[in-house]
Each structure stands twice: as structure tokens, then as C-alpha cells.
């Protein structure tokens, strides 16, 4: 009797669930974007995760920014692009612009240069949790306002630097009246923060402001995350979703022919689904409108083959700004000879790696500059081809022979007979890197080099690179649409403390890098970039592998869903609901 009843209850419950599940789907002007994990916070200046940056960009605005479709600067809060001036005597670079007269906060007050100054202080002041961002803003030394024009301002940078323009206009402008109602930051000028940093750090008013500003409510409470952008923060269900709502009567509505003012959906919903299978299932069930960062295997095998999916979604593969590479320790006695490094490059079957491991979703790269950066990219460089015979010749020229007949080539280095063994490290858990390394290992075996592929836990992997304690490793870099500053990775000053793990560089390349950093003229800088790529290619510090393509599925419910190279590869605010829906 008991089991009978249980069965009945169970069946009824199941039926109820099915009915409940069926009545769910509605066509709404809302975009649901898949995210793999919850973000850290929505404080517009303290956040650290990339996702938070995307959401904040829908709620806050900068002075100017890069249009990802054209990779050109466009004015946002500024009326027009700023006037760039360089004072060579004082070594000051200035950007002068005027704010749009229509620009308003939610309370109807206009956005003023005082708000801009306040925002810059958020990136520079002590006690605020801005440590990661602070070094970048050392560049901004002052902001000049003009009493005769309340909307005009000049941002002063303390040196000639290619990234100055993106730093000076790229930060978000935040309303003082929300974030500093007591006007405590009025007590400290930008100049004071530059010169009396330690003193301000101990100031009770600074501590009071920063404790409040760092607090939870400015990270995730509605009413405390307020910007001038088209979307307002609506809701954050921890670990599940973040919802942004379109503002009614937003001041920027009339500019919606400009890229950064496009804001068509009523709601943007960022839905966390941790498990890839679950996310794909949700996508197929049309519970998601956008899914990005889809695993290549799933993208090719599950999505591209499904008619149902292709009927409902566009499957986009824009190229990304990232590239992967094998790093070679140039100061290791085995790799000191450039011919050896060239031989290793000839042993890397990049086409096979892209085809087998990347499912063909990528493009080979020939150097550190992304092909999309037209002008800067040097298309005359041909990457090292996969050529075992050539590699044998090069190794023999460099003195590597199998003298003891054990199948592994060897050489006397500093009087010691050294067998050619390579320890190749990658971050544990990244199976596609392991598989690429195994393809390399197999080719090396054919010339008598023994490669040991070793996984390392992420923090150890990074620490060993910092200590230059590696022979070869599999790494990747992600670029940005701004001009590349090669210093972090390629300058010899970055060997200790920077990211020049492989010991690349000499006086000539250092000079090139320094010239690139301070050359504001695009044409001249592009020439330098092209020279620089040749220098990198010739020295073979890295074996450049490929630039993976993004894998993005976007619902056909929407139009105007163009994808682009800049992460995350799409802009959900531009989506327009299709007419036929």
C-alpha cells in the first residue's frame, strides 16, 4: 500500500514538473548571455575580473574608447576626440576635450569635469582597493579645468607614451553624488595624491571614504552602482545571474547611431552555468541567447553539425587577440645557439596542431603582432616551416650529433657531454596544450631529441617562469585593441620582475621598444613595429603557434549581432529583436 501511494505521488509530481517546464518560454526583448563563473564585484574601479569589466561597460561610460568594429577611437562622453598636444620642454602630454552638453547623471544633473577628477582619484588614491590598477594611473599627473567653459577639461600625462590616449580616456566616469555624498575626496587633489601619498594614507577622512567605497554595498547593491550608461543595475543573484535593465528616458538615446550608444534590449541577463555540458544543453533548449568561449570540440562536433542549432543560432568564429607559443629559455646552454632554436621551430608542426587540437578554429601567427592590426603587422615574415630535414642540418651545424649511438643527439657543453633532453612544461589540466606538446615531442624524437612533457600546477608553472627555471614551456598572451607596448614581454628590463621569461633582447631591440613606446605618429610607429617583428622572428625566443578563433553562438532572435576581434567578441547591447519574431 505504501509503495503504491509513493508511486502515485511521484508520478504526479513529475507530471506537474513537466507541465511547469513547458509553460516557460516567451519571446522577450532580453538577451541572456552565458557566463562560466560569477564575477567578483561591480565596483566600477575596484573590480578585477574581465567579466565585471563587460557589465560595467554597459552601465558606465568613459571619455572616449575603441570601437571594436573599426578598432578606431571614438568619443563617448567627450563631444569629439581630444586634442593631443606634447610639451617637449616639460615632457607633458595633454588631452583636451569637452564633455557632451546632454550628458547627465540619473538625478538629472550634468556630468562635469569635477566628476572626471573624482573618478581619476579612485584609481590613484591610497587605502582604496585599487592596487592592480594604480600603477597604470601613475601616468596621469593632473587635470586642468577651465572656469570660462564648465564642460572643458585637459588631462595631463607625465610622459610621451603610446598608451596615454587609451588610459586618459578609457577609465569610467562615476558620479560623485552617489559614491562620495560627504564630499570627502574634495580634501585631496590629484597633485596631493601624487606627492603626499603616505600622508594621505593615514588621514582619517581618506580611511573613512575608502572603507565606505570598498564596502559591500558599492560592490553589489542596487542604488549604489550608478553610472551614466544606458543600463542600470537591477539584480545580482549570487552565483547565478546578474541582470541589467535599460534606463527609461536615457539621455543618450538620440545618439544611438553611434556604436557606444547602441542599447536596444530591455534587459541584459548574465546567466552563470558552470558546467559546459549543462550550458550547451541550455543553449540547445534556447534558454540562452549568447554563448561564448565554447570548447572547440563541442563547437565543431555538437553545434556545427546540428541543423536544429543552425536554425536557431548563428555560429561565429571571429579571430581573437590572443596567441599561443612555445617559450624557449635562451640562456640555457642547450638553446643558446640560434640555430638550435630555429631547428626546434622547424620541428613544430603548427598546421597539424591547429588542425588536430584546435579543430581548425585558428590561424597561424608569425610574431607578436596580431594580423588585424593592419599597418603594424608585418606580412612579409614567413613562419618557420615544418621541415625535419632542415632541422637535422641546423642541429648538425650547431654541433649536435649522436656520438655514443644511444639514439639521442649530444654535444660537449662546457666540457660536459650533454644529451639533448628537453623538459617541456605546461599548466596541468590544460589537455590541448599537452596534446600539442606531444605532437612536438614526436617530431623531436625523429631527430634524436628527447622531450619530457611535464604538467605543473598553475602557480608553480608561473613561478618557474618568473625564476627563468624552465627549458621550454607552452604559454599564451592576450592583446588588446590599443597599440601594443612590447616592453612587458620583450624588453631586457623585464627580465627581472617583468614577463621576459625567455631572456630575449639586446641593445638594438631595447632601443626599438623604447622608440615604439614614445612614438605617437601611427605611420612611424608601424614601421618600428614591423622592424621589431623581424628581430623577434630572427632570434626565435618563441615558437609562435596560433591565434585561436573565438567560438560564439548568438540567437537568431536578434539582428545586428556582428562579432569582432575584441574580447568578448560581441556586444549584447547592440542586439535588435528580429522583425519576424
Amino acid at each position, binding site marked *: 500500500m505504501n509503495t503504491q501511494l509513493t508511486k502515485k505521488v511521484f508520478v504526479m509530481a513529475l507530471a506537474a514538473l513537466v507541465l*511547469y517546464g513547458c509553460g516557460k518560454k516567451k519571446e522577450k526583448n532580453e538577451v541572456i548571455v552565458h557566463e562560466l563563473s560569477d564575477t567578483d564585484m561591480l565596483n566600477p574601479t*575596484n573590480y578585477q575580473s574581465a567579466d565585471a569589466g563587460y557589465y560595467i561597460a554597459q552601465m558606465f561610460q568613459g571619455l572616449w574608447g575603441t570601437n571594436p568594429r573599426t578598432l578606431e577611437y571614438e568619443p563617448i562622453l567627450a563631444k569629439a576626440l581630444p586634442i593631443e598636444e606634447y610639451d617637449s620642454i616639460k615632457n607633458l602630454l595633454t588631452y583636451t576635450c569637452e564633455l557632451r552638453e546632454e550628458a547627465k547623471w540619473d538625478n538629472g544633473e550634468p556630468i562635469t569635469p569635477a566628476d572626471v577628477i573624482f573618478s581619476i582619484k579612485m584609481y590613484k588614491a591610497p*587605502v582604496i582597493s585599487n592596487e592592480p590598477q594604480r600603477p597604470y594611473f601613475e601616468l596621469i599627473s593632473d587635470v586642468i579645468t577651465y572656469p570660462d567653459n564648465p564642460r572643458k577639461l585637459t588631462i595631463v600625462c607625465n610622459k610621451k607614451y603610446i598608451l596615454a590616449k587609451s588610459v586618459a580616456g578609457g577609465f569610467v566616469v562615476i558620479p560623485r553624488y552617489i559614491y562620495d555624498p560627504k564630499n570627502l575626496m574634495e580634501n585631496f587633489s590629484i597633485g596631493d595624491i601624487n606627492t603626499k601619498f603616505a600622508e594621505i594614507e593615514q588621514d582619517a577622512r581618506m580611511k573613512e571614504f575608502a572603507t565606505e567605497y570598498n564596502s559591500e554595498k558599492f560592490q553589489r547593491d542596487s542604488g549604489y552602482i550608478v553610472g551614466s550608461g544606458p543600463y542600470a543595475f537591477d539584480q545580482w543573484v549570487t552565483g*547565478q545571474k546578474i541582470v541589467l535593465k535599460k534606463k527609461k528616458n536615457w539621455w543618450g538615446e538620440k545618439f544611438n547611431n553611434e556604436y557606444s550608444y547602441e542599447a536596444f534590449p530591455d534587459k541584459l541577463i548574465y546567466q552563470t*552555468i558552470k558546467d559546459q555540458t*549543462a550550458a550547451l*544543453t*541550455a543553449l540547445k533548449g534556447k534558454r540562452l541567447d549568447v554563448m561564448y568561449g565554447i570548447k572547440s570540440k563541442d563547437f565543431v562536433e555538437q553545434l556545427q553539425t546540428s541543423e536544429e542549432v543552425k536554425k536557431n543560432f548563428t555560429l561565429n568564429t571571429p579571430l581573437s587577440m590572443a596567441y599561443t607559443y612555445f617559450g624557449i629559455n635562451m640562456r640555457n646552454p642547450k638553446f643558446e645557439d640560434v640555430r638550435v632554436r630555429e631547428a626546434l621551430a622547424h620541428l613544430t608542426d603548427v598546421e597539424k596542431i591547429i588542425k588536430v587540437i584546435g579543430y581548425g578554429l585558428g590561424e597561424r601567427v608569425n610574431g607578436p603582432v596580431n594580423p588585424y592590426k593592419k599597418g603594424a603587422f608585418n606580412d612579409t615574415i614567413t613562419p618557420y616551416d615544418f621541415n625535419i630535414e632542415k632541422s637535422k642540418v641546423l642541429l648538425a651545424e650547431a654541433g649536435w650529433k649522436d656520438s655514443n649511438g644511444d639514439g639521442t643527439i649530444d654535444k660537449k657543453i662546457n666540457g660536459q657531454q650533454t644529451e639533448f633532453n628537453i623538459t617541456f612544461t605546461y599548466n596541468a589540466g590544460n589537455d590541448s596544450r599537452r596534446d600539442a606538446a606531444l605532437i612536438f615531442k614526436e617530431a623531436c624524437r625523429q631527430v634524436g631529441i628527447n622531450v619530457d612533457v611535464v604538467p605543473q600546477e598553475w602557480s608553480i608553472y*608561473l613561478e618557474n617562469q618568473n625564476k627563468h627555471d624552465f627549458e621550454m614551456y607552452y604559454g599564451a598572451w592576450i592583446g588588446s585593441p590599443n597599440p601594443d607596448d612590447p616592453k612587458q614581454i620583450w624588453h631586457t*628590463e623585464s627580465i627581472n620582475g617583468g614577463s621576459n621569461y625567455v631572456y630575449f633582447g639586446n641593445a638594438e631591440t631595447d632601443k626599438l621598444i623604447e622608440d615604439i613606446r614614445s612614438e605617437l605618429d601611427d605611420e612611424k610607429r608601424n614601421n618600428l613595429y614591423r622592424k621589431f617583428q623581424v628581430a623577434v622572428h630572427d632570434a626565435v625566443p618563441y615558437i609562435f603557434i596560433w591565434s585561436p578563433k573565438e567560438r560564439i553562438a548568438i540567437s537568431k532572435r536578434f539582428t545586428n549581432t556582428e562579432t569582432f576581434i575584441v574580447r568578448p567578441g560581441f556586444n549584447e547591447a547592440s542586439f535588435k529583436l528580429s522583425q519576424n519574431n
Partner: protein
Amino acid sequence: MKPVEIETKSGKTEAGKKVFFARISFPLFGYILKRILIFIPTLFIISLLTFILISAAPGDPAETMLSRSSSEGQASDKLATERSYRELRHKLGLDLPIFYFAFTNTAQSDTLIRIPTKNHREMLDRLVYEYGNWPQIENYYHQLKTLEFSIIATKKDSTNVDALIELRNTVAKVFIHHQDVVLSALFTDLKEQSALAPNLVDIKAKVEATEIAYSKIKSEASVWKRYVPKVQWSGTHNQYHRWLFGEARWVGEETDPTLGKGFIRGDYGISFFTKRPVKSVIWDGLWITMLISILVIVIEYIISIPLGISLAIRKGSAYDSGMTVALFITYSLPVFWIGTMAIFFLCSPDYIEIFPPFGLGDATMEDGFFYKFGDLAYHLALPLIIASYASFAYLSRQMRGSMLTVLGADYIRTARAKGLPENKVIWRHAFRNSLLPIITIFASFFPALIGGSIILEFLFTIPGLGQITYAAVIQKDYPMILTNTMFAAILTLVGYLVSDILYAVVDPRISYSKK
């Protein structure tokens, strides 16, 4: 006969009640008190061990926090970055000694931990181990730093630029090496390199000063110090004290809002990653995990108990053996696989779309109770089934075993001999007694209440404590790890205590009083 039976029965119950209260009276009460007192040192040791393990693990949270956002950006001024790093370490308290005191040797230094770069700390630590004279080593490090900055600050021109690069590279190596052979070679290189250009006199002098400082380490080595033990007293200004008691004032109003109050005053700190108070992060996950765990336990018992009984009754039948095999098969199927399969087949329009593949639903505060309840039930149904199936085998075997024991007892035979129907024998006489072992197992579920299931939470994107703990470990979020560990420890201890008490209450043969 009948009236007598009723009389004895009621009499028995009365007596049972009395016995129950008698049992939790003095001896047991004293026992509980003693156990709770033992909690204090146990928790203390657990917290200390966690602390030591965390600090010994590779990786540096301050470094991770700074580099997380710079993956996309560009490196900037070395000095500015170093300053940021130093400040962050200070803010997080990572530049403090770990505990009040440390058993070391006289060679060890108390200021080594303040050196901001991890690689450098390791190099210096090795030198200290080898030569045992911290003052000289500290001086050497200072000289080396001066040398590094003078190289960076030297103005480049066509004559010295090559030399400068070589110098920088060599200095970078000096910073991470401690073996005498390597260092001697490096100093020879440095001297050669600084002689390459005429305008590097200043650097040359600094190279020499550094080498002198290094040779002083060797000549004034005090290796014996390594063998002289020392108790190094750090006072209350240490990481452990800061975490446990906090730095804020105990009496009166604290004026500095940046100081924490410490674990025992209910301030669990600020998460390194989300920068939220640990308390609210945990609270967000806690109610979900508790809700799911309780529901799972209820489901497990509701299914397993009748199942176990039915198996015991039909012992040896085809039903019994068939069911046993089936249960063991389910028991051996891993949750992550079944979960993935369930999502793949039961949530997808390609097959049968019954359940949602993720989350806890979209109900908001404004929605009515029934909508909220329905939404939650709809989303939780599949995760709950997945979470509970594996325990059916274990629990039902337990139930079957204890039922069989009871069924073999004399009083059951008596009951049967009296001619009571089998139904009555089982449900009135055997059932209650056979439940006892199952009840005590319950206490062992306590830690799971807070631990949650990482796999389940991951598969269905349920933002519970399991996920939070896992993320904290991956992100080296020290305050989160510590708080989670402490609460898990407390619940485990309480769980064991409850289970011990239940044993005593349930089984008269177990007593905790001294004989």
C-alpha cells in the same frame, strides 16, 4: 490477557521516559561539558595547522591579485608595481610573522618575511641556512638592491647600452642564486661587464661594494648559529593574532575603520577575491547548501527505510538479491557521470526536456509563495535525485541488517508465537528497535550540511558552499579558506558529539559515567 498487555505497555513507556531523562542527567551532562572543553584546544590546533599549511603552499595571493587584471594590460613602471605589491601585502597582513613565536635557530632573521619578493625571500633564506649571519646577508641584499636600481637609473647611450643589458641580466640571476660557485662566477661577469663602458664607474663601485658584502657573508659566517636553538618571539603583531583577535580596540569605540575585529569577535575578514565580507559570502551559500542537504537526507531516509525493511522481510528471495545487485550498481555509478548523463538526456531538446539544466530558478521577491515554491522545486528536483541515489544502497543495507538482527530476537519470536499478524510484528515491534543504528548514522551527515557537494553544485550551477570553498582554495583566498575550514571543523566535532550522545540515549548499555 488483553488488559494486562495494555497495562504493561503503558507501564513500559512511562519507565522508558524516566530512563531517558535519567540518562541525560548528571554523568552525561558532565561528559558533554568535558567534550566541549576539549573542543577549544582541538579547534586551536586545527586553525593553526590550516594557517601553517596555507602559508607553506606555493603561490603568493598578493601576486595573483595584482597579475589577474594585468594579463590584458601592459606592464608599467617597475617601481610603481613594486610599491603596489608591497602595499597590498601590508594591507593583507602577509608581511607579518605567522605566529606569536617560532622555534628556530639563532641564524634565522625576524625581518626576512618583510622582503616583498618571494623569489628573493627564498634566496635569502638559503643564504641564511648556509652562512647563518643575517646582518651581513641583509646588508648584502641591500647592496644588491642599490646596484639594481643604479643600473636601471643609469642613462643609456650608445657606449654603455650593451653593458647595461648584460649587467641587468646578471643581477637578475644574482637575485635568485645562493650557491657560492654560481655567485662567484656571476660576480666575475659583473665586474667584466661594468668595465665594458667608460661611464659605468659608479656601477663598478657598486658591484665591488656588493661583492665585498658577499665575501663578508662568507668570511664572517657563523654556521654554529644554525645549531643554537632560539625561540623567536614576535609578540601580538602576527598573522595568527590578527586573524583570531583582530587589531581593533576591545574597549571603546574604534576610530580606524580599516582594522578588523578577528574571528572570535565574529569578524571573519574580507575575501581576497570578491572583497566582500567573508560572512556574507558564506551566508549566501550556506542556506542553499543546508536546504539541499536536509532535503537530500530526508529523501534518502524516506526511500531507504521502507526499502531496507522490504528487503529484510523477503530475505533470500529473488527480489532481495535482484534489488541488492541493482543497489550496488547505482552505488558504483559516479555522481559526475550520472549527473552529466542526466543533463544530457533529461534537459536537452535533443532527447527529453523535463528538467532545467541549471540554477535555482528566476523567482523574485515579488512572486507569490506558490510560484516561488514551484520554481524552486522544478529546479531542484533533478539535483536532489542525483544527490541522493548513491546513498540508497548504504542506508538500505544498514536498515536491512538491523531489521534482520531485530527479527531474530527472542521477543519477536514471542510476538509471532502469540499469533500476531506479520504486519503487526514488523511495524509495531521490530520497526522502532531496528531504527536505532540508522538514527546514529544521521550525526555523521552533519559536516556534509556545510560542506555540500562540489560536483553536484558544479554540474547544476548551484551556488552553494562547496563551490565557494573550492573557488577559495583555487584563488588562494586565505580568509575564506580559514573560515570554511573552521566551520567545517566545528560542525564535525558537534556531529561526533551528537552521535555519541545519541548512542547513549538510545542504547542503555553505553554509559559515559566513570565506573
